[in-house]
């Protein structure tokens, strides 16, 4: 076997393996703690257990989109337009969209148990749904054809426009509901009394999901870099071929 095969994980390093191991351990605790050790809630009953995965995934999704915006702005402002920022923005948005999907699914399962309905036109839920669709659009823009720089510029601008859009959507949805529906707004975590163990589990969830997030983004970003390099190599070969063709004619 040649040297190329020696590294078992192409995008992995010792650091990511440690990170991954830590993530698995923490997640194990979150699952066991969330499903077994923690007590049920006085008001919500067993359904409070969904909180331990729902709340962290929402939190991480928002973190992901903030990081996408920061990386996009860095790409635009930076004189060198470093493609690393672009790859990070893309990787973070992809992972963020996944966490947002998890948030929506677990949230509606929890809602079915608590409210008796999968969906409520609550401002927070509605904004979250819009955020999800907006970043699906962002990912679609990343897939548009064009040069690498063009793709980076377009998607960076779309990411920053999303930052303009989200507060406007949220604000309008908030007053849309408050003017007409009065106080039917349900606060998803408002009436929960968390004891120490429950708080600790929720906190571990946030930590564990953050570890998972960074592990995924690191690997995704490196995969993108590998693909860029492969493409660049492909271009080099193509240039050499075409030059040879052009000189012999």
């Amino acid at each position, binding site marked *: 076997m040649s040297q190329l095969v020696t590294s078992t994980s192409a995008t992995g390093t010792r650091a990511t393996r440690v990170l991954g191991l830590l993530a698995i351990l923490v997640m194990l605790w979150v699952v066991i703690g969330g499903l077994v050790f923690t007590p049920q809630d006085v008001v919500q009953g067993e359904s409070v257990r969904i909180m331990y995965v729902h709340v962290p995934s929402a939190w991480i999704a928002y973190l992901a989109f903030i990081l996408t915006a920061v990386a996009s702005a860095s790409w635009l402002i930076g004189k060198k337009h470093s493609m690393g920022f672009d790859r990070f923005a893309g990787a973070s948005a992809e992972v963020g969209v996944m966490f947002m999907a998890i948030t929506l699914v677990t949230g509606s399962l929890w809602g079915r148990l608590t409210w008796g309905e999968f969906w409520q036109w609550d401002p927070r839920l509605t904004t979250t749904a*819009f955020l999800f*669709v*907006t970043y*699906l*659009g962002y990912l*679609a*823009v990343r897939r*548009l*054809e*064009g*040069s690498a720089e*063009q793709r980076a*510029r*377009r998607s960076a*601008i*779309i990411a*920053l*426009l999303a930052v*303009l*859009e989200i507060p*406007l*959507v949220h*604000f*309008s*949805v908030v*007053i*849309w509901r408050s*003017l007409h529906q009065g106080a039917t707004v349900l606060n998803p975590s408002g009436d929960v009394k968390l004891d120490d163990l429950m708080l600790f589990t929720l906190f571990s969830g946030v930590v564990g999901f953050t570890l998972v997030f960074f592990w995924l983004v690191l690997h995704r970003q490196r995969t993108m870099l590998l693909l860029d390099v492969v493409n660049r190599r492909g271009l080099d070969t193509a240039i050499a071929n075409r030059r040879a063709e052009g000189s012999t004619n």
Partner: protein
Amino acid sequence: MSRPNNGRVFSAVLIKDLRIEFRSRVLMNQVLPFAGLVMIMFAFALDNDDVLQRVAGGLVWLATLFSSLIIIQRSFAVEAADQALDSLRVAGIDLAGVYFGKAIALTIKLIVLDFVLLVTAMLLYRVDLTGSGLVLLVTCVLGSTTGLGFVGTLYGGLTAGAKGRETLLPLLLLPVVAPVLIAATRATEAAFASGGAQTSEGWAWVGLLAVFAAVFGVGGSLAFGPLIDE
């Protein structure tokens, strides 16, 4: 060669776009009938005079959004057909001027569209309009069509010539214009006094429309050039 200035580019593009519409009459002969048809279909689907009266505002703005998608596509199909957009890019002219020219042309078309839709709603859905309601309604139409014109031109330019633009444009545009749909609907309901709404309630929503138009007017003029650039 003199460096072209903004105002000249703006007026040239605005006049050009309106003239093309005047010649081809796509809005007149295709979009307006489509929008009117949608209003009639709503009546079939809901089949209840009281409900129609109550939701008339929402239906008008829903029909506006869907029709605006067609108008926006058309506005950039004209540029892409003979690759005039390439000529505009090469010309090195100020693209913010192009942006405002196309946006205002789009706004004017949307105003015509909304005028027809609102009149249709008043006739078909039997809504009433008071004097103060009319003032509110006109302001609301101006605010929301300006906002839609800005956002539509921005995302229309991005998707012009792209693969799958027919589906990409709605995916990008509809979430962004949700505030316009909400605010314009509420303001129109206030103007129509649907469900006992007060005219005064509508003005707060018009404020939101103005903020939206201002934000995307500024953001769009900065973003449009880099977005359509190759």
